[in-house]
């Protein structure tokens, strides 16, 4: 039987060498060892699935409360803001006051990204 050689490829000594790799015969204990691990795996109790159906009402309720809270906060803020009029100096002062909060928010975001990255790396290394 001829190899499945594609006509569009040119074939040279590198092809000859790499296609003619020798067949490796699995060791005599390979089948038994693999089946042993499969049986161990089969004997192990299956992980308990997360009870989504039970948790669903709670998740929906929590989402609704958070959504409502956010909406109310925004609505109150907009209403309150309409009652104020700021001068340029007041706006500049408010900006200066908010600057530390911005830095804190930036630090929190950096921490979150760092945590996510470390989790990802740990997951790749098999620690998680």
């Amino acid at each position, binding site marked *: 039987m001829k190899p499945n050689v594609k006509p569009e490829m040119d074939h040279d000594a590198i092809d000859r060498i790499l296609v003619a790799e020798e067949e490796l015969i699995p060791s005599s204990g390979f089948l038994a*060892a693999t089946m042993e691990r499969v049986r161990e795996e089969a004997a192990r109790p299956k992980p308990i699935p997360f009870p989504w159906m039970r948790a669903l009402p709670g998740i929906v309720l929590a989402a609704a409360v958070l959504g409502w809270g956010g909406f109310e906060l925004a609505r109150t803020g907009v209403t309150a803001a309409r009652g104020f009029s700021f001068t340029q100096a007041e706006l500049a002062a408010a900006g200066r006051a908010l600057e530390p909060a911005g830095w804190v928010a930036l630090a929190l975001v950096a921490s979150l990204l760092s945590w996510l990255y470390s989790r990802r790396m740990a997951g790749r290394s098999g620690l998680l």
Partner: protein
Amino acid sequence: MQPGSAGNGLTGSRGALFEMHAANSAAEDLADVERVLAGEVQTFEGIVRRWQGPLVNMAWRYCRDRGRAEEMAQEAFLRAWRGLEGWRRDSSFSTWLFALAANVFRSELQRFPAVNVPLEDVAEPAGPATQHDGLAERQSDEAVRRAVMALPTRYREPVVLYYFHEMDVAAASRTMGLPEGTVKARLARGREMLRQRFPHLGEQSTSRLSSTLRPQKEVPQ
């Protein structure tokens, strides 16, 4: 047969053997999978028995370490066992199994890379004058195979799978889960890097190709 031993033409039937596996065992694979999913754990042995050769050989091409190849192949079988329900019957069992195994081998080698030397440090084989010497030729061939391991990952895997699948780009792309065009491009680049590393192999190709490539494949096992 030991992986490092001499080439003797026996390998010519490897690809044919794998193809035969896929064609002849499709019904058996399907029946075994159904029985395993019905709870007959022992039936999985049939699947391991049929596919242990191809998977160990595929793993060997990824790492060129016999012990590790068997460990990786075993891990692939375990993942197959766990994910058997995930095999959609729209592709053959072998296609699914090879793709799963490639993922396992790739992630295993990301966690613990095989010990590779840089491509430029791989010893260049002796020139054409010594090519009639069997030992020199085997060493030369082994140097080329080791050089594959020194290729950058994105080019190494297409090269490994292309030759594992007996130079079938479509099969390699199915195993990698990438479009054929992408695999072809990476394969061309990988082969080009090998040719640059071993320039004299290109010179030999015209004189040796006709007498080495096809006749070797015809030698019965």
